[in-house]
């Protein structure tokens, strides 16, 4: 397993870095927030990201993608994490396109994936129903009706749910609420009768939505994958997304740490640079060590996704290792980002607070550290 970037990935990383620094810096997110932008991301910037091929990075060439693999998508996500780019990369590319690619019929893939690659289609995954991530705790019902189904229930924390043209809805077609059996996925138009979407403004200035489904009639061909047997496929999709999200978090963590280091090397108190104080040096050195571990697990997990020799169990473990570790370290580093900057770190004018806010959302999304430690223990039979 290669834990260092290959030449193509390095070139991609460099170009993603210059794009994000120039066209999507943190000030863009600040502008979207201050103008209460209705979309929640900049459509022009998204179009340029699409033009660079980022929406099709991990999608196979047979469906219009570029076959760069998750290793390629990962380095792009890492760079978007450095400047906190708000875009449909997570909702549409990492989650929805992966779900369609992994679970969809040939027809669904042929129809939808090229549109995602071209930036013509936004899709959101409607999964969580409670305030904590629990992929099998699904109460939203899918009742058989004629050839189709009727969906009813409520979803929360649906990324980009208010702008998506299509939704992937995880619903229970049979079984008890926590059962992994009896889950089905449906791909539906967001504008169907009975769907009520309300945007929520999250602390990280990105979008999520609460969505209600009241007796929504969907056709049989809306099924994504097999009826009642959706959990395993969903779990795999979530693992891919967890690893991609960890890559984004890695970028943010490194950015915060570099800003801390710059500050330690320029801020003077008591007539000397504060970076010469051992109390701060040891905390910085400890963060550095943890961040080195983060880099390794993200690289290992991304390489694992592109390695056909890895088993489902391997990927599940890698995903939980990555998401647990990155969540812990992002928590610590984002807190130190405020503390080590002192008073200025508390001001809205200074950017570091945006990273703290993003940290908590990213930590929580798709399972926080304790979720993934629990999952890792279960995967290892203890």
């Amino acid at each position, binding site marked *: 397993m290669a834990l260092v970037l290959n030449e193509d990935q390095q070139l991609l990383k460099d170009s993603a870095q210059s794009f994000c620094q120039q066209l999507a810096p943190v000030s863009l997110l600040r502008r979207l927030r201050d103008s209460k932008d209705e979309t929640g991301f900049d459509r022009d910037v998204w179009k340029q990201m699409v033009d660079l091929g980022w929406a099709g990075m991990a999608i196979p060439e047979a469906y219009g993608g570029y076959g760069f693999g998750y290793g390629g998508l990962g380095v792009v996500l890492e760079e978007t994490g450095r400047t906190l780019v708000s875009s449909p990369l997570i909702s549409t590319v990492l989650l929805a396109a992966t779900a369609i690619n992994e679970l969809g019929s040939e027809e669904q893939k042929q129809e939808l994936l090229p549109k995602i690659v071209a930036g013509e289609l936004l899709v959101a995954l409607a999964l969580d129903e409670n305030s904590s991530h629990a992929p099998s705790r699904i109460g939203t019902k899918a009742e058989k009706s004629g050839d189709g189904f009727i969906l009813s229930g409520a979803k929360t924390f649906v990324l980009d749910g208010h702008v998506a043209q299509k939704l992937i809805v995880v619903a229970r077609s049979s079984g008890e609420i926590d059962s992994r059996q009896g889950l089905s996925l449906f791909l539906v138009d967001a504008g169907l009768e009975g769907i009520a979407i309300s945007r929520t403004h999250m602390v990280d200035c990105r979008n999520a939505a609460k969505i209600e489904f009241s007796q929504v009639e969907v056709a049989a061909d809306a099924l994504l994958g097999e009826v009642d047997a959706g959990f395993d496929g969903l779990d795999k999709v979530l693992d891919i997304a967890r690893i991609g999200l960890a890559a984004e978090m890695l970028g943010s963590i490194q950015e915060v740490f570099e800003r801390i*280091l710059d500050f330690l090397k320029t801020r003077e108190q008591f007539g000397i640079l504060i970076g010469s104080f051992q109390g701060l040096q040891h905390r910085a050195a400890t963060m550095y060590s943890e961040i080195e571990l983060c*880099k390794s697990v993200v690289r290992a997990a991304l390489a694992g996704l592109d390695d056909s020799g890895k088993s489902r169990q391997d990927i599940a473990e890698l995903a939980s290792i990555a998401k647990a570790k990155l969540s812990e370290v992002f928590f610590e580093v984002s807190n130190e980002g405020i503390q080590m900057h002192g008073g200025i770190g508390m001001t809205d004018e200074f950017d570091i607070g945006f990273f703290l806010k993003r940290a908590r959302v990213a930590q929580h999304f798709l399972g926080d550290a304790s979720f993934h430690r629990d999952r890792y223990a279960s995967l290892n039979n203890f």
Partner: protein
Amino acid sequence: MQSLEKFQKSTREWLQANCPESMRTAMVAEEVVWGGRNASFKNPDSKLWLERMAARGWTCPTWPAEYGGGGLNKEEAIILNQELRRINARVALTSFGISMLGPVLLESGSVDQIMEHIPKIVAGEIRWCQGYSEPGSGSDLASLSTRAELHGDTYTINGSKVWTSYADQADWIFCLVRTDFDVPKHAGISFILFDMASPGISTKPIQLISGGSPFCETFFDDVKVPERNLVGRLNEGWSIAKRLLQHERTMISSFGLSSGQSDRGGTTSMLASIERAAMHYRGDTDRLSDAVLRDRIAQFKIDSAAFAYTSQRSIEESKQGQGPNATSSMLKNYGCELNKRRYELLMQALGSQGLGWEGDGFDSDELQVTRQWLRSKANSIEGGTSEIQLNIIAKRVLGLPDIMSAGKAQGSK
């Protein structure tokens, strides 16, 4: 690629034919092979395994073949290591000559010194010890005061060392001595090799809190050493000393690597899996009933996996033959802290059965956990304390300013 595949195939075949069955089981402490003039082999297979591995130079796979090493490149060495792990092969030879002295001797030694010492290290004929710390020079190592004075072509050495690992069993010592007292402390140190059988040397084991005595006090009273045993130039021993410390840290960091991995030789079955031990002592069958301990073990195993990937990445990133760099401090520090966590968790897993000292009522695995838990406390002190490692990371890796005037702290310049 093709030649690597060939190498893998032939290595696998050779190991299959030459690694004795009993050498494919978890290592037990009494059977670790240190070599040396007085080497003892509790298990005769250990001797056979050492001789076979040494004959191919595979006790030191990447050292040049002309000096008895394996002559392997980085990729081949990785494959050899994978193949050894695949059959759970024991380490054929454990030695400070391999992990510390050899690499710096190959970099800084004279051809004569290399020819004299390297083949004997590869073969396990000479056991080395490290003369670094002194009673007054621990973290501030460069303040050392053991003196070496040159008369004719012979040095006379006087002074004492402490924390000399296995000095009482070693054949030779690599030693830091002060050869100039009138210059800044880093500028008057030399690196010298001598035979522990020389007249005037005495050693005294130090009993630790674990009951074991892996370290000694070592005393030098007018010890005579030929001038040609000085490595590198006179008074320039500090740079060699620091380089050797990087190798030492890399070795110590590997303690952390064995944490949380059950497929690694060198640990007994009890130590190999904290979660199995915890479930066994609680009578749990499918799930560890102590939810807090379960969470901590999971966190530990996740950190161990992340650390193993980081060690692997550091090997991939290093250039062929370049050896360790400043990140060795990070690996040493993290590996040691992981190993300490591992033993604290094992103690929790065993409960009162991990609290025995000796005698009846505890099996040997349980008693070993207690003793190794105590021994593990030294991990973050030996080879430079964790605090010193954090200083080195802050200054050398992160480029933070040095509050102490140049050259006072170990490793600061």
